[in-house]
């Protein structure tokens, strides 16, 4: 997709569904983060809506945040696989490709290469958003190989530490001793060290976090996408609790995310020198553009 395909012809606009027209007029297509970004969610029409996720799902919240912080939603393609996350990701107004049981990173490898050949003058973003099962258990080999090959796209792991979609089996990312509905004896093995594996496999930008600070979380998503455009594979390991399988009361989901930030999901950011260079350059450009815009507004006021 591109902005040209998203925008309807003026004379046909009245025949289009209301939701679609609203999305073009008040959505984030072709707008900057100051106009339609995570900082003013709730004031523009968001890409994702009416998803079937459970009440109070922190994963749904993080997915909402991902779509709000996309630097260029009209040039983005998301990939996912079986799991809870795809229920919401596939509802968003961004092209979505459904991978067959964990092959999202293998597909994204081909897709990002094809985009670079087909659109050499454009910057297309490929993002895989999958759960802990799709990324680290079932799709483990394909995830690792895509990183080892240095494929340039972003991998986001929504870690809820359980197979929430199928009734609560233990996953590789469940913590040791976790008692779940389909693992009543408690998990006997350790949690997989996902960020260490990513480091060993050659990811150039790796973050482990619990999305409690909205600005920080959005900044990291954008950094991961910008680095993946130029340098190499990037990986975000985010805690998105399952309030059903871990029996967290819905109103305490946020408090739980804060709690996890202090133990298993302490903030960790790793970047190579090349990645740091890209981040510094792009953030300096953004700051300059923001300052220039602010200057124009102040001049108008004066």
């Amino acid at each position, binding site marked *: 997709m591109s902005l040209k395909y998203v925008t309807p012809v003026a004379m046909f606009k009245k025949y289009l569904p209301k939701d679609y027209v609203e999305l073009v007029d008040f959505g984030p297509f072709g707008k900057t983060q100051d106009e339609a970004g*995570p*900082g*003013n*969610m*709730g*004031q523009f*029409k*968001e*890409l*994702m*809506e*009416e*998803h079937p*996720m*459970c*009440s*109070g*799902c*922190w994963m*749904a*919240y993080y997915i*909402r945040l991902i*779509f709000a912080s996309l630097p260029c939603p009209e040039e983005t393609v998301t990939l996912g696989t079986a799991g809870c996350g795809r229920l919401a990701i596939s509802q968003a107004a961004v092209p979505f490709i459904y991978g067959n049981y964990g092959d999202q990173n293998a597909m994204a490898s081909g897709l990002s290469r094809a985009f670079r050949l087909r659109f050499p003058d454009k910057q297309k973003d490929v993002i895989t958003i999958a759960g802990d099962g799709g990324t680290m258990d079932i799709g483990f080999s394909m995830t690792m190989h895509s990183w080892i090959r240095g494929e340039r796209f972003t991998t986001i792991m929504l870690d809820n530490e359980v197979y929430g979609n199928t009734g609560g089996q233990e996953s590789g990312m469940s913590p040791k001793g976790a008692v779940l509905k389909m693992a009543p004896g408690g998990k006997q093995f350790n949690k997989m060290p996902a960020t260490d594996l990513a480091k060993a496999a050659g990811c150039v930008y790796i973050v482990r976090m619990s999305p409690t600070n*909205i600005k920080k979380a959005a900044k990291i998503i954008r950094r991961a996408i910008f680095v993946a455009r130029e340098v190499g594979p990037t990986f975000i390991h985010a805690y998105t609790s399952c309030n059903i399988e871990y029996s967290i009361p*819905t*109103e*305490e*989901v*946020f*408090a739980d995310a804060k709690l996890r930030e202090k133990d298993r999901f302490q903030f960790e950011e790793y970047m190579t020198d090349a990645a740091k260079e890209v981040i510094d350059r792009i953030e300096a450009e953004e700051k300059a553009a923001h300052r220039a815009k602010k200057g124009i507004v102040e001049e108008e006021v004066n």
Partner: protein
Amino acid sequence: MYYVAKVNADMCAEYKCNTCTLYCPEANTLMFDKVGNTSWVDEDRCKGCALCVYVCTDMLSRNCITMEMVHGKE
């Protein structure tokens, strides 16, 4: 018949705050009205998780949001 969030508009308008809209897991549900300077809830979409109540009451101690029972429209 189920619980949905309800924003007390008069109380909410006293603060220049849209924190609850940033933490709702449902997109396009808890919205912010820039003119009235208040948050409002799309009752048909609210799933009643009360996360916004936690944000408004426990985090910010402003108590502007409550959970209230709604009945299906005929």
